[in-house]
């Protein structure tokens, strides 16, 4: 029975291998030149091949014991919990982030940031309603003032158009 980390590792390596294969395919359509006068496609082709080979090696090779201090699932405290509590929470955050990005230029900065941070605080983190409203309002307003008024960053106005 493979550990969940091992499954993740294999899936990630397969994904990298597939991406490398498509990279090689794309490179072959580009001008190559020669080894001593390389054109646009040669270096990507070589890198794609090396990535593919190494991805295969990682899939075949046995799982290394995670070194102390090595990267991996070690969020939070000192201990490194191997399994996640639930997958949906990161997924929920990604969905909200995707919605924020989608709405950013359409609905405008203030509206998106206000609703985005409110959803995260109220629906994902289950903070009290009043607290969520106050924090998201201060956050959206504060960031708008900081970026737009102090740093002159051009932020999208959206539906509110200012």
């Amino acid at each position, binding site marked *: 029975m493979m550990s969940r980390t091992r499954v993740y590792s294999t899936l990630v390596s397969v994904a990298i291998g597939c991406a490398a294969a498509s990279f090689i395919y794309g490179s072959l359509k580009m001008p190559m030149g020669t080894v001593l006068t390389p054109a646009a496609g040669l270096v990507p082709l070589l890198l794609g091949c090396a990535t593919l080979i*190494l991805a295969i090696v990682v899939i075949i090779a046995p799982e290394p014991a995670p070194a102390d201090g090595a990267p991996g699932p070690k*969020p939070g405290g000192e201990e490194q*919990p191997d399994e996640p509590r639930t997958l949906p929470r990161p997924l929920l955050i990604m969905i909200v982030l995707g919605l924020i990005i989608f709405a950013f230029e359409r609905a405008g900065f203030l509206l998106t940031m206000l609703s*985005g941070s409110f959803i995260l605080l109220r629906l994902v983190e289950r903070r009290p309603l009043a607290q969520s409203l106050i924090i998201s309002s201060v956050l959206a307003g504060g960031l708008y003032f900081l970026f737009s008024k102090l740093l002159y960053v051009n932020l999208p106005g959206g539906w509110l158009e200012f």
Partner: protein
Amino acid sequence: MTDILNDVILGLSVALSPNVLIYAVLGCIVGTLVGVLPGLGPLAGISLLLPLSFGLAPTTAIVLLAGIYYGAMYGGSTTSILMRIPGETASVVTCLDGYEMARKGRAGPALAIAAIGSFVAGTISVFVLMLVAPRVARFALKFGPAEYVGLLSLGLLSLSQLSSGSRIRALLMSLVGLTLGMIGVDPLSGYARFTFGIHELADGLGIVPLAVGGFGISEILLSAGAKSPAAIKAPRLRDLLPSVREIKSSVGACLRGTFIGFAIGLIPGSAHILSSFVSYAVERRVSKHPEEFGKGAVQGVAGPESANNAAACSAFVPMLALGLPAGAIPAVMLAAMMTHGVSPGPKLIQDHAQLYWGFVASMYVGNIVLLILNLPLVGLFVRVLRIPYSILYPLILVMCVVGVYSVNSSTADLWIMFAAAGAGYFLRRANYDVAPVVLGFVLGPLFEMSLRQALTLSSGSLSIFIQRPIAATMLAAAFVLILINFWSSFRRVAPLRAGTKR
């Protein structure tokens, strides 16, 4: 020597005059603010605030912009240490050990060491700059594509030092980074590579969305998915300053970082971003406890932060001495000087002595201002960690969105950040490290371009790498380093194999 002393006194009299000093302080404050915000780096900060300097006297304008630059370099480490969000490329390395220190309740010492290291590096660099600027700048001119290939080969070798996990996985991640760096229009032929007709991809993926997504947001996702919620230890008041042991072990790292940073910063182009990576690799190699790196080694913060600041300082040498900008930021500063009717170059010291020495002295004054400003702020920044994570992470997330958007005002960057966050999450869950991806991504295009330029210059002959002494020396050094790596790997593996046979 007397001449230099007189010049320094002239510079200090300019830099310490109230109307210049106030703009130096203002620049440092604004720069720190810009640096602390994820996404907005020194270049974006200077570019955004450049119009503000138009109404000022030339010296004051340059001092203001330089203050923003240093402030941003200082501030960039803050989010790296506290939230694992690199403000700019040079701060990526600080994430590795700085954030681990923060998780252990040592955020205060990490921030203090970063500030002190930056101050030491900045101060030493200004002195060297005053003494040897014109001579050193001429050396920088000898750097062509072949020399770049040599330097970048050394940079690529430092990739393996960035991960504390499996070497083969680190190598795979480096290759992923190098490959991602190929996306965009080929700078030599203009051929669009892997852009799929999306014109936003013509300039490549962009380092800021990649680093913010891959490091910062993936960390949020990991914490959100953890059994026990993220529990970064909030430091006690007495833990805010570094211990004597931490200071002692940082001294050597600071000095080595300063030397590495100053030397690399002189090189024209984008070489300065290498300084913190090379410094980290060197610190890990010279350390008696390399296994502590990636787990909160104070040298992993002190060295790269010093290198980063020294490079920021020495990047001005070719600009001041020869009128040649060594990178994007000095180029913007050069533009600012020319807007004010000042032409940088060999005659700058003679024609505008007050401006030149005022600017140099303001660097020193700026470093002191930043130290005074940043050390008391350590306590304030560390208080951020006392905010419950369920409130803090939505705040970080929206700041990342605004920060990344503000770089190019493009939602394409936000989608890249989104993809990098998802990829970073899965990579880290699968025990892969993201740091080599970022460095590979930075070095890949530079290496390819330099290699192809060098081969074009030599009409396809490899002799260019042997005939040019600097390139040959660096390539030989890279070769020796590869041999040392192989030898140390062999020495580790050989006893294990012998034991298995027995």
